[in-house]
């Protein structure tokens, strides 16, 4: 068997973890955490995404170039969110309509 084949228990373990996270995110939505609700939901989604990427998409144990490509893409996504937040977050600071 080639070295890069993951044991079956890894796949089923990841699946069970994803199911548990799904149950957790639905339950957490019904608890009032204030503004933290959104961040809890996004944190759980990010954890689920990381599991899928590392184990289902075989990024763990693959060539190191793959995470470089993914992270460079995520960096540009971060820039998009950052500058949008800087723009919309500071509108109205000057007290001039439309600025």
């Amino acid at each position, binding site marked *: *068997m*080639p070295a*890069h*084949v*993951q044991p*079956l228990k890894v*796949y*089923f373990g*990841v*699946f069970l973890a*994803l*199911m548990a996270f*799904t149950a957790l*995110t*639905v339950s957490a*939505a*019904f*608890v*009032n*955490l204030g503004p933290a*609700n*959104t961040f809890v*939901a*996004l944190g*759980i*989604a990010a954890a*689920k*995404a990381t599991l*899928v*990427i590392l*184990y*289902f*998409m*075989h990024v763990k144990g*693959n*060539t190191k*170039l*793959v995470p470089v*490509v*993914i992270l*460079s*893409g*995520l960096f*540009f*996504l971060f820039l*998009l*969110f950052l500058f*949008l*937040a800087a723009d*919309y977050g500071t509108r109205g600071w000057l007290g001039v309509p439309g600025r």
Partner: protein
Amino acid sequence: MASDAHGTPLGADAAEHGHGAGLAHHFDSYEQQKDSATLGMWTFLVTEILFFGGLFAAYGVYRSLYPEAFRASSHTLSIQLGTFNTVVLIASSLTMALAVRGGQTGKGKLAAALLVLTLILGSVFLVVKGFEYHEKFVEHHVPGASFHFEGPDALHAQLFFSLYFLMTGLHALHMVIGIVLVAYVAKRAWGGAYTPENHNFLEGTGLYWHFVDLVWIFLFPLLYLIGRH
């Protein structure tokens, strides 16, 4: 018989250079060929991440501007159907991952069966999505001239539903493409096209399918689970 640019039959060419079937001439080894295919697929997926990222950014802006409209609109979506579809899609990712493993271990028939299971689960997802869309049309929650919304800030509730249809619609389009790919790969896998050395097309299709799952993992809480407390 197929031949290369110099008119040499590919089979003879392979024998001369000592590389086996399924290894393209311009690669030194199966490993290099696989790494190239994986890297190429991920480069494409990164463009897809940025493509959907623009929609998530629009969602973020409008949700921060009109939180009440988004909260009220989100409440009209069925949390049961959304959760059911999340489970179905994650299960389809599992069967897809196991199908790729079947390709890695040379079990083509098992891979084909798991791929058929994957496309059945994918179809279930789309059918449920269809029922959800139907309900939105019946309730006049589709943005446009006949839009009607009882909750607060009906004008900006249209923004939520526009983003809802755009994001889930684009996601569903990716699923349709994925299902066609999976059907094709299942047929090839059944015919024994994938070997432990070269199952790159199967692996690439798997990456695409998991990406579609990833998008849903973020769509589900952002569309269905806002302000439920």
